């Protein structure tokens, strides 16, 4: 029996299911209980937001140079203003700050270049960012070459130090983590047990302990006369610590790749490293972007712990500034500023990872 002789045309959905009013009704006021929750939620939001905005913006002092300029009851951003250079560069000599500025400029230019899809020569820029730029940055920041006066690492600080620790930590932790993850899945017993012991050791120790050991105990084991820079020690500790976490994140990704992928690659005659590098890792890393970025974000925030071995990262330098007797009592402003800067960087990483995920999502595209 034939019911329809012609196909039915597509019709628009009823108008009361579209538009902002329909959205409000469906999501916020769909019943008496939901309406109540919405109203209570709005009230709590009002109670929290209004004083915050008043403190941070409306009643805040922005202009001036000393604490006498802070006369209103809101935030005293004058403090942050007066100390801004120190927050960014630490104790880097004022006369040499142009060097740090060049490195900052190069750093952000490279990141932007790699992140913006339209720009060409990605591969060469990436090689430069990983090889050329770190050397150039070291020469510029540290000096001692080309008539540049030396600036020892204990004068480096502030946001500069935070970014340095974080970026070197990330660049180091990712490849070490990949190798450890592959090693842990290896069939070779020595490689496998080395990786398992390494990962479990670093994961079982708190980062603070690692940093303490790096700064206090390592010199005891080194032969006298050899001293490793404190910043380098902290960097090694931080990188190895995070690479153990990274390894476990990546191992999770490797396990999610069906065995058939490696078999298909093997059946085509690919060697182990080609199977991993061309087939398995690209898929696993893509799948693990949220986990990898999560580890990066936690690494970025963990850099604040170097404070306890006497390195002044952004938070450390803010805290040091708080004990200045001229500016006692402005700790809230200092911490809010530090939190805001950290948030900007972590949030950007998070957004970029979401963008990457969407861009690379080919597997499930229909």
């Amino acid at each position, binding site marked *: 029996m034939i019911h329809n002789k012609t196909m039915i045309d597509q019709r628009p959905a009823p108008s009361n299911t579209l538009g902002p009013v329909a959205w409000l009704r469906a999501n916020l006021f769909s019943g008496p209980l939901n309406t109540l929750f919405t109203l209570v939620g709005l009230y709590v939001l009002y109670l929290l937001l209004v004083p915050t905005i008043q403190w941070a913006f409306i009643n805040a002092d922005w202009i001036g140079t000393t604490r006498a300029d802070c006369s209103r009851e809101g935030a005293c951003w004058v403090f942050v203003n007066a100390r801004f250079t120190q927050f960014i560069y630490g104790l880097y000599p004022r006369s040499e700050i142009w060097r740090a500025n060049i490195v900052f400029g190069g750093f952000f230019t490279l990141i932007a270049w790699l992140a913006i899809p339209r720009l060409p020569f990605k591969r060469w820029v990436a090689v430069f960012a990983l090889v050329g730029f770190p050397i150039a940055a070291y020469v510029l920041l540290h000096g001692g070459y080309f008539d540049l006066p030396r600036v020892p690492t204990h004068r480096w600080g502030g946001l500069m130090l935070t970014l340095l620790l974080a970026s070197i930590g990330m660049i180091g932790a990712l490849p070490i983590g990949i190798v450890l993850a592959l090693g842990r899945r290896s069939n070779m017993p020595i490689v496998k047990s080395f990786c398992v012991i390494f990962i479990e050791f670093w994961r079982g120790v708190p980062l603070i302990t690692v940093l303490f050991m790096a700064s206090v105990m390592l010199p005891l084991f080194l032969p006298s006369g050899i001293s490793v820079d404190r910043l380098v020690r902290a960097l090694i500790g931080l990188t190895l610590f995070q690479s153990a976490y990274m390894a476990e994140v990546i191992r999770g990704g490797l396990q999610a790749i069906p065995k*058939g992928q490696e*078999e*298909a690659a093997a059946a*085509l005659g690919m060697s182990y490293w080609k199977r991993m590098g061309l087939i398995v890792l690209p*898929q696993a890393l893509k799948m693990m972007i949220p986990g990898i970025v999560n580890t990066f974000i936690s690494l970025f925030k963990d850099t604040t712990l170097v404070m306890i071995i006497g390195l002044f990262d952004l938070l450390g330098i803010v805290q040091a500034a708080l004990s200045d007797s001229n500016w006692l009592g402005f700790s809230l402003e200092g911490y809010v500023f530090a939190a805001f800067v950290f948030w900007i960087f972590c949030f950007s990483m998070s957004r970029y990872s979401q963008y990457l995920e969407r861009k690379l999502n*080919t597997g*499930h595209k229909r």
Partner: protein
Amino acid sequence: MTQAATNTPGSSTPDLMVEMRGVNKWYGDFHVLRDIDFEVKRGERIVICGPSGSGKSTLIRCINHLEEHQQGDIVVGGVPLTQDVKRIEQIRRSVGMVFQHFNLFPHLTVLENCCIAPMWVQKKPRREAEEQAMRYLERVRIAEQAKKYPGQLSGGQQQRVAIARSLCMHPDVMLFDEPTSALDPEMIKEVLDVMIELAEEGMTMLCVTHEMGFAKTVADRVIFMDQGQIIEENAPEPFFNNPQSERTQLFLSQILGH
């Protein structure tokens, strides 16, 4: 005829593409392959059938060392299969394999799937690899999808791409591991058609399948396996019309009976 061990053991001639002598394999305590003796000559088309768990897939997966055998000798294209990684890779380059679940690389386009091994294993320049890939995609009638990702194709299309991907390595032998078992009925024919064409061109083929129609059309020999042993081996006509072993008769009655 119950066992296929009629040839004298010894070094293989180039005419023997695959040679298995006394091959045994265990998964732990489970004896999967028992005293397998068989050989494939150049240009032969062989269909392997049998109940599930009988070791058919394991058998052909031993040929390119996706599974390791614990006893016996396997010689592929004159090269004895040993633990040596270089030698295993050499054998795999000359043996193509098509899987039940296609196993296309989902992060690469159809064209890239077909180019990646020629480019990285055989070191072909990209242009040459792409031209060759397009020729083979043309042959399996899917060239117009070359820029798509595997996830955008139907099962039958994916399996045809997988066949093209294998052919791009110019294999001497093609292994098919239940190539149509994961497909919807309407897609089985498009894959079988490609396989029949391949057989007609003289490709040496070893095919684990339940498609008895395919076996009747193209196979030179049909092998029946049960519990890890080769039970019966014959040309398709006598195999289907006059099976010797009871177990073969039972199996055929179950598979052809409905």
